[in-house]
């Protein structure tokens, strides 16, 4: 499709700026004209063209509302419409962050209560709502680690991360200067206790652990793991992105985690917005509360306010107070579901994943063949070995069947990985349709592999050349004649 720039017609403007109601001024009397912009090359299009252009683009996109979106690790559950509407109430949306606190009591109360809910759900002593995404929460957690050991005057330069971990974990660790050491997984898909024992030395600050891990498996030895880390004075950091699996069933705080980040946009159902905004609150055990970012929302009798006076705090990780409209949706979600609803989320999320695991097991390799939690990870190695069909091909083929593909090639320790997370909001009817498509594709891999490799076959666009994109980066449009790319 044409770009909005390619639809631009000189001299046309889609938006009318209000007439000025103040006396006109001679610009040059107030500011040197060398400081002023002369031109700005933005699209010149009418409102109808803007609407049609982006409406057409939207129709080239696939969301949860379009269909099943089993993108593993991302918890693409249904996003309740009422929460959208509530997040757009003017009294929330039009609130300036620097208004007097007496004018922001509704928003402050909401944040305070949300924080308390998260403490209860995750078994932590306190939470900061400031981080803007899961990875941002990880970074915040790691900075808390550093500050904690700094305060204790301990020099710890390493962090341990299992080989199954999400890429943000090592990246977050590294971003605050830690050396990242990988810990192996055992044959069951859990962290290898022996290896962990050997790696967990005095200069290790923390183990970053995802539980259930990215294989969708619960770390059965979590107690032993926590002991190994704690005995050496280390911190057990939890990547809470997979919390959908255990809501109301167990609590990270009770399992021994000292810090955890929660991905509100996953577990608590904010829409993912094509890649954000998200929200990644960080919860901590009692001994780490002092290190949380400032400000922190506190309650003063009947009133709520922001408190800045925490001398040990790591400081700010973001301007203002967090992604409020995401917090609001999470709050609404928790209030809707209540304790029983949240537990049911975990139960059905796990039920759905195990159902898919059971139904697809005959057709794809299942490297870790045990009860899974909220997602299950298959390997396409059989299809690759026998018929040269890659997981990427099968994923693209699913598009033809009307589904969003699962996460592929992650976790890294599973060759040709397909990571399927159905979430609790999908009906068994939908799961059956999906399984039937997967089975049909498995058969196609056997019977018509060449065809499969060209998938998607029915879309407006066919397989895209990602290598070309990286080799000759073209990251902006340029007028004809200006040349494109770099």
């Amino acid at each position, binding site marked *: 499709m044409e770009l909005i720039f390619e639809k631009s017609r000189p001299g046309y403007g889609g938006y009318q700026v209000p007439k000025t109601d103040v006396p006109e001024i001679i610009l040059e009397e107030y500011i040197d004209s060398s400081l002023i*912009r002369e031109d700005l090359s*933005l699209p010149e299009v009418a409102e109808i063209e*803007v609407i049609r252009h982006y409406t057409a683009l939207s129709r080239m996109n696939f969301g949860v509302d379009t269909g099943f979106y089993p993108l593993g690790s991302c918890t693409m559950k249904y996003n309740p419409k009422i929460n959208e509407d509530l997040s757009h109430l003017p009294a929330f949306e039009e609130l300036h962050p620097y208004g007097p606190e007496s004018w922001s009591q509704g928003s402050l109360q909401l944040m305070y209560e949300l924080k308390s809910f998260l403490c209860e759900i995750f078994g932590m002593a306190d939470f900061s709502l400031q981080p*803007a995404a899961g990875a941002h929460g990880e970074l915040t957690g790691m900075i808390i680690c550093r500050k904690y050991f700094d305060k204790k005057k301990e020099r710890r330069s390493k962090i341990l991360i299992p080989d199954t971990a999400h890429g943000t974990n090592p990246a977050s660790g590294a971003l605050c200067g830690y050396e*990242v050491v990988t810990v192996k997984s055992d044959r069951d898909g859990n962290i290898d206790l022996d290896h962990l024992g050997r790696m967990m030395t005095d200069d290790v600050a923390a183990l970053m652990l995802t539980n259930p891990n990215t294989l969708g498996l619960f770390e059965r030895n979590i107690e032993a793991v926590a002991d190994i880390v704690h005995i050496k004075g280390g911190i057990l950091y939890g990547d809470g992105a997979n919390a959908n699996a255990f809501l109301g069933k167990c609590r990270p705080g009770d399992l021994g985690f000292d810090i955890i980040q929660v991905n509100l946009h996953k577990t608590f159902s904010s829409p*993912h*917005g094509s890649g954000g905004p998200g929200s990644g609150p960080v919860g901590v055990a009692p001994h780490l509360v002092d290190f949380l970012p400032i400000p922190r929302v506190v309650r003063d009798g009947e009133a709520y306010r922001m408190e800045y006076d925490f001398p040990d705090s790591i400081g700010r990780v973001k301007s203002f107070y967090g992604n409020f409209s995401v917090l609001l949706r999470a709050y609404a979600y928790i209030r809707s*579901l209540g304790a029983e609803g949240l537990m049911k989320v975990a139960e059905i999320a796990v039920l759905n994943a195990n159902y898919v695991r059971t139904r697809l097991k005959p057709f794809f390799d299942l490297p870790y063949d045990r009860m899974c939690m909220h997602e299950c990870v298959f390997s396409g190695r059989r299809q690759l070995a026998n018929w040269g069909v890659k997981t990427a091909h099968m994923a693209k083929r699913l598009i033809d069947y009307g589904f969003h593909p699962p996460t592929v090639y992650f976790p890294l320790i599973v060759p040709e990985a397909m990571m399927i997370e159905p979430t609790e909001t999908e009906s068994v009817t939908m799961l059956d349709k999906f399984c039937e498509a997967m089975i049909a594709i498995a058969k196609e891999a056997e019977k018509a592999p060449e065809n499969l490799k060209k998938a*998607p076959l029915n879309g407006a666009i066919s397989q895209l050349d990602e290598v*070309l994109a990286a080799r000759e980066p073209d990251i902006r449009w340029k007028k004809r004649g200006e040349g494109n790319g770099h």
Partner: protein
Amino acid sequence: MDYIPHTVEEINRMLQVIGVKSLEDLFVDIPPHLRLSRRLDLPGSLSEQELAQEIKVLSGKNRIPSLCLMGAGAYNHYIPAVVRHVISRSEFYTAYTPYQPEISQGILQAIYEYQTMILELTGMEVTNASMYDGATAMAEACLMALKARGTSRVVVSRAVHPEYRSVLKTYVGTNNYDVQEVPFDKEGRTDLRVLTNVLDHEVAVVVIQSPNFFGVIEDMAAIAHLTRERKISLCYTFTEALSLAFLKPPGDWGVDFVAGEGQSFGIPMNYGGPSLGILATTREFLRRIPGRIVGATKDREGNRGFVLTLQTREQHIRREKATSNICSNEALCALAACVYLSLMGKNIMKLARLNFEKAHYLADQLSKLKGWKLSFPTPFFNEFTLQVPDMPSVVEALSQEGILPGYVLNRDYPELASDLVFCVTEVVTREDMDKVVSILRRV
């Protein structure tokens, strides 16, 4: 109300297929004594109708000012209806990062367009699909510079937004890098003499905000000259993105990084978030910039299409060697900005000019009041700092009328204890301003 579409019969049938007896059996791997043996202590569940009622009660405890004269990093601009209509298309807002380009051309193309617009606005060569916010974008720009140069210090003007400096310290401090602050001068601009003195060989990057926290436009020509001479990177930051449509593009001064906040482009203030972190740089940093980047490519038939590209920078490929840890960003806000800028087109320059004129009207009127004067005699865009005779009464008088006064500087700048930063955008009418003046005349 839960959102789970399972009947009891279906659950039983599924359990059978799996080969277990009960839902409990699915959780065998959680050690029993670690299980939560009680129900979570949360308020009872609510139906949609009850929820809507409860949240409306909460919203009633907020108070939206009848007039907002506060900027300071969050701006009350008019958002054209078209923006909300587009970002409410569920194909956009219920999707995730476009990992599968063949069914995500919509958002991919929109971000490619967004990238182009940001590069037009900033005059830079390389940008990404968004950062969390202005403050983190600025901090990450500094990390990029520090890593690239291998030196240890960031120099930042005290006229940079206090929260941005605070975030910078958190990000940079944890890496054992230093942050050094440079004062501002009588003109409200970064003190060039002090700046010159601190620029030693340990400095990787200098951060300047323009218009700065006081609304004052910095002397970028002089600063860029200083840093260029010393081969030190220069990071231009901003909180009011609309100023980009008024001022000479930062790229023209030869800066290395432009990092700031895009909330003014069609995103509500939202009590401070979500907003839009903008980060742009030079070609040199194409393979080091954090975050997602969308690139154009071709499909099998040779048609143009768009993909996430240069992913070898990213955490999911490079892990600890990634240029950043960013995964979810603020894509929907970038889309909002893209739609906003498409709709505005060149008219955004008129809009910026309108902001300029209105702000100067109020500044002129207020400086005529007895005891009031502009704190700094320096050009500004839509924010300006005023020294006022009696701060508590001024704040009180405006608040009484439901007017949100400007930002009180004394917490962050004790030396400016009687100074307020006002902001005037296109939504403020002359009538509003005349009313403000008449209220303040009575103080």
